[in-house]
């Protein structure tokens, strides 16, 4: 498939106008798929550039307490993978920012690598991130994703040695997910200074856009990444805004509009 992917196109357009991508993360089915669909549409209206959709998993070792708690809430409500696919299928994904599925390989393997990938493409996802499928185990998955026309996003961490980075990049497409800190997802006040050096080095190794995630929670963290990263990812800070809903302290609509306001403040920084 020589056609340019939607993810690639999105980053190319942003780069052409000298902007960074803002990519929020939402947990599918927290508290239900109707809310997730409304959230995706709200984020789109607020001008975000890509949206990561997290598939709740029972044992998410890369995730911190906020995202894990949201996964537990969704699973306790009986959410199934089929529900996520059905919900996404009902969206007009051609007119939304590219959706990227964040999903454990435990789920992908159980459903079947081929079947999961095909179905994800069919319902409108543009790419996949499989955080527990490191680069050297990903070649089969990368082949299948390529065949059906999905990007397979690979992760690079601060602990990844240079020779591993080069191996990992071989199966990567879409963008490179640069983990800012050694550790799990979650809000942190500062980004490590070594991050910029790694991003600059990565830039010499790949033409793929570089998106930074883990630990980013506020617009003023975007500044230090100008010129070195092509996009920023925010997860826990957004997922945390859904917590009052589960505790019945806030309506779904109010929580979604709070997320929308936050997204707009991020886009104001990344898109300036």
């Amino acid at each position, binding site marked *: 498939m020589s056609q340019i992917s939607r993810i690639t196109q999105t980053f190319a357009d942003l780069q052409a106008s000298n902007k960074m991508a803002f990519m929020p993360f939402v947990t599918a089915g927290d508290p239900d798929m109707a809310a997730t669909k409304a959230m995706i549409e709200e984020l789109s209206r607020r001008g975000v550039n890509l949206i990561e959709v997290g598939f709740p*998993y*029972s*044992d*998410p*070792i*890369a995730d*911190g*307490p906020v995202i*894990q*708690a949201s996964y*537990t809430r969704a*699973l306790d409500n009986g959410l*199934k*993978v089929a529900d996520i696919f059905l919900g996404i299928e009902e969206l007009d994904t051609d007119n939304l920012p590219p959706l990227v599925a964040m999903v*454990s*390989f*435990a*789920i*992908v*393997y*159980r*459903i079947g*690598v*081929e079947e999961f990938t095909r179905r994800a493409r069919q319902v409108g996802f543009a790419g996949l991130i499989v*955080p*527990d*499928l*490191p*680069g*050297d*185990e990903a070649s*089969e998955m990368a082949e299948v994703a390529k065949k059906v026309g999905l990007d397979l996003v*690979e*992760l*690079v*961490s*601060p*602990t*990844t*040695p240079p020779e*591993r980075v080069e191996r*990992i990049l071989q199966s990567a497409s879409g963008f490179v997910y640069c*983990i800012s*800190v*050694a*550790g*799990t997802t979650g809000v942190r006040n500062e980004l490590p200074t070594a991050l910029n050096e790694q991003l600059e080095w990565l830039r010499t190794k790949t033409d793929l856009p570089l998106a930074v995630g883990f630990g980013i929670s506020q617009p003023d963290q975007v500044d230090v990444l100008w010129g070195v990263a092509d996009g920023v990812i925010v997860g826990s800070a957004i997922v945390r805004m859904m917590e009052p809903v589960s505790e019945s302290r806030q309506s779904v609509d109010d929580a979604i509009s709070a997320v929308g306001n936050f997204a707009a403040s991020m886009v104001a920084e990344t898109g300036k």
Partner: protein
Amino acid sequence: MNQTDTVTTATSAVPDDLGRFGEFGRRFVPETLMHALEQLNDEYQQAQQDEAFQQEFRELLRQFVGRPNPLYFAERLTKYCGGARIFLKREDLNHTGAHKINNTIGQALLTRRMGKQRVIAETGAGQHGVATAVACARFGFECIVYMGEEDIRRQKLNVFNMRTMGAEVRPVTTGSRTLRDAINDAMRDWMATVEDTHYILGSVVGPHPFPMIVRDFQSVIGREAREQCLAQTNRLPSEVIACVGGGSNSAGMFYPFIDDQDVELTGVEAGGRSDKPGEHASTLTFGRKGILHGTFSYVLQDDDGQTADVHSISAGLDYPGVGPEHSYWKETSRVNYTHVTDDEALEAFQTFARLEGILPALESSHALAQVFKTAGQRNADDIVVVCLSGRGDKDVNEVSRLLGQDL
């Protein structure tokens, strides 16, 4: 992994460089852990070749753990069953009362070799936590043990022991608040601390190289048993029986016998209350191939790949996965896996105590239940070796509760 793998004869020459036992094993972990795993693997390969390291390990097993422990002829048990001659591998006589310490001493040596000063571990019932706390006290390492909030409540004695030995017991409040969540939290800790911290995983599970390292350190059980059996009876056993949760005592027991094709190997899983999902922990009997805790093995999970709830009377067998080498042994039919129920294990616990004057751990009682079921069908020329993986002192609260007796 999707191509049809030809099932061959099991060999002891596994895993390969990628951590594969046949199609099982490998590494399915976040990228942040990959460097630590490669570093551990490199260090372990060097330690294996290092005679001084091996010598120190053997010496600690002798002087600190109290090895070799006996291969003991269970005379009254043999008479009671009325068939094969039954021998017990007495891991219950080790320091800390179980096999877990073989592994924690070995990994503590690795920790020191890597120049790390901080150790983390997970624990369910607390046996591995205690064995890790003991090893860390012995070597002067900082020790943090992740333990489910539920388990902390149920295992106060082991929590006290760990704290007395200077370990910090960190409650795990996520998910099911038991062993599998403790493993998740330990891995999360490790991702943020890999530079100065070693994770002493307690069973033959998790990503490569853990299943290999833990098996190797535990295989002292099978090596001793094999030599002792030859020395005491002039022959190899007809059958070797061990219980299987994650599978560390059984892997250590079976591994030195893998290439002895005439020795039957039997792994006994926790059958729990019934065969219904959620009521047992018989991963190899009822599970299917999948991913859990960074390895590809048999696992109990639903149609979406979500880990299933499990149950066993024995906290040490209460785990929804199993080591990848066991899956390999199942797939190659080298080991026969079966299961016994909570009730059968509880009955074996009591009968065995009266026959032999030894209080067995509830985990080991599963292996003993299998002996009660099958040893009588063998003839008197046969030899059955059972791994008595631990002593039952830790279980007296639970057993007395189940029997309706006040302590």
